[in-house]
């Protein structure tokens, strides 16, 4: 593991240690499992975001994609679709939304931050226009995929872990996985090595979308209602988790494990503050402080042997 991942893990360990000493009540089975279950969909999205950022792109429309998939899946479920059909539908819808981003970025060569900014606003406002903020009530059998609560929670967690392990494995051990690193590191060099950067970029966005769809389903099964706003702010959370976890925003460096650790750290903070009985209005300041702290650990690192390269000639 690289330094940054260790550093973030270190900050997380310190936080957990403080909790163990000051508020051992944090470590209880059900609430902890519940916390993890709630973060499981975000973890799935963080995996996708890792891949997107590795390719030297960014996707800030994931929160909106998540919302759209949630509401669409919710409406279908409310109209009596079985959950077995809702899942593939949501994944496919997400894939489609991601593919639109991918086509604009890879096909037309537009900068991803702008494209996804545009799709984010468009999707979100479109959803507001249609749904006007109203909840979708789901039939009972949707919750926990129709399982009991505990097995349901475990299965949500299992899906998230499977996605995490699967993407880690694919990124590390398959040629296709390495192509994301190659394109993110230097797209022109990748082209010359016979990789098709546009395809790889497209795949990153489409995959991100599909994972948003999956995450949306993993989220809606956790309660009997869907809130159209559910995805608000998720893009920031996913991106923060990934970059805090050491994935370089300039592409080509990092791993999904880093993203997972980063997410764990960010996810623990609100609950930790409650357990430490710190008043809520300190929360944002502390969260910001921890992000800064996690990246400040880099400062202590001995200077890189040679100067870092200039960004590969930007688009």
């Amino acid at each position, binding site marked *: 593991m690289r330094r940054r991942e260790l550093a973030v893990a270190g900050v997380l360990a310190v936080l957990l240690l403080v909790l163990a000493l000051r508020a051992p009540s944090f470590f209880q089975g059900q609430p902890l499992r519940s916390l993890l279950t709630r973060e499981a969909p975000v973890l799935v999205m963080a995996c996708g975001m890792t891949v997107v950022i590795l390719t030297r792109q960014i996707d800030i429309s994931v929160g909106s994609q998540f919302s759209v998939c949630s509401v669409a899946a919710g409406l279908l479920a409310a109209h009596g679709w079985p959950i077995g059909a809702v899942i593939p539908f949501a994944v496919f819808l997400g894939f489609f939304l991601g593919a639109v981003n991918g086509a604009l970025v890879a096909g037309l060569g537009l900068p991803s931050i702008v494209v996804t900014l545009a799709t984010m606003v468009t999707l979100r*406002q479109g959803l507001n226009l249609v749904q006007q903020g109203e909840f979708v009530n789901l039939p009972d059998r949707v919750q926990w995929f129709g399982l009991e609560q505990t097995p349901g929670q475990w299965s949500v967690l299992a899906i998230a872990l499977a996605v995490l392990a699967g993407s880690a494995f694919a990124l590390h051990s398959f040629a296709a996985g390495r192509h994301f690193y190659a394109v993110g590191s230097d797209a022109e060099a990748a082209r010359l090595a016979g990789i098709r950067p546009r395809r790889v970029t497209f795949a990153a966005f489409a995959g991100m979308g599909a994972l948003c769809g999956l995450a949306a389903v993993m989220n809606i099964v956790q309660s009997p209602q869907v809130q159209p706003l559910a995805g608000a702010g998720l893009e920031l959370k996913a991106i923060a988790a990934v970059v805090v976890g050491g994935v370089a925003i300039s592409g080509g460096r990092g791993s999904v494990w880093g993203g997972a650790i980063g997410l764990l750290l960010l996810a623990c903070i609100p609950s930790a503050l409650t357990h430490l009985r710190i008043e809520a209005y300190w929360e944002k300041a502390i969260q910001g402080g921890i992000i800064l702290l996690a990246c400040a650990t880099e400062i202590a690192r001995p200077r890189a042997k040679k100067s870092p390269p200039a960004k590969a000639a930007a688009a």
Partner: protein
Amino acid sequence: MKRPTTGAAPGWRRIVFRYETLLVVLLVIEWLVFYRFGTSTNRRGIVVGFGTMERQFDILRHSCEIGLLALALTPVILTAGIDLSVASVLGFCAVVFGRLWHDAGLPVWCAAGATLLAGAAAGGVNALFIARFRLPPLIVTLGTYSLFRGLAEALTRGAVTYTDFPVGFLFLGQERWLGLPTQAWVFLVVALFIWTLVHRRMTGRVFRVIGFSPEGARYAGLAVGRTTALAYVMAGAIAALAALIYTARLGQAKADAAVGYELFAITAVVLGGTSIFGGRGTVPGTLLGIAVIAVLKNGLAALPAVIRLNAAEESAGLLTGMLLLVALALGAAPKLLSARRPRTPLPENLPIPKSP
């Protein structure tokens, strides 16, 4: 997107085929459409809607803070950086101002001055991490985005709202001076300042070089750290100025001031043709970007159809998104076309003619 002014051979093509021209055309179209369909005479025989002077001033006043943030972001983005914390700094400064004036009892103009310093200091925190310790701007400002909003909340425990500012101060945000809303003058001065800095001074050149290649800039003996720091400190100070105007316009200072404005500001900058990868971009472009968004947002709220749908907010969002995509695609079109042209169908694998 075209290369920024190189100070060379003007020629009408250069001027006509600039990205900025596209924005001007867009702006004019927008304005004409809204003027035509958004203006009417009401039952009392008064001209109302988009066409009124009052409405135009409203546009100026409402877009002033976002405009300032966009201006502040332009140099930052030119250096291939980003500052997500500007709106949080705005909120923080609004609260600091309120506290200094209300709780500490400073005269209002002293409090304002101190607030500008506070803003610069907040920018200095970003600068310290980014320019000095060379950490990635996105992460650092993501951290300070939470930090400063959080400090604003902590300072007021989320609850305190400072109000009852003296009339002299509210003049800044609610009245007119020499025919224009007061804050428009402030905005103009800042815009002129940033324009000079970016287009006429050494600093602007250094911003761009850093944006293209920070290493290249270092090897050229340029003041990389100092100039990067300047961009962020300036962003902080301008955010503080925006905080004062925001406070004066609404007559209140509260921890949630300008939540989400950073996104609008970034949108305006990139719509204005500044490359998020740094190096490319112009101040006039940013100004046009702001104008296009502001007119769109206000104009839609004057269209009868949109009003009946009760969807000004949503449709403005939708259209801004679409507009951004269209502008980008148009900006990229010439490049794409020329790149496609030589790619005539490839007659591959033709049989080899008998070699002589």
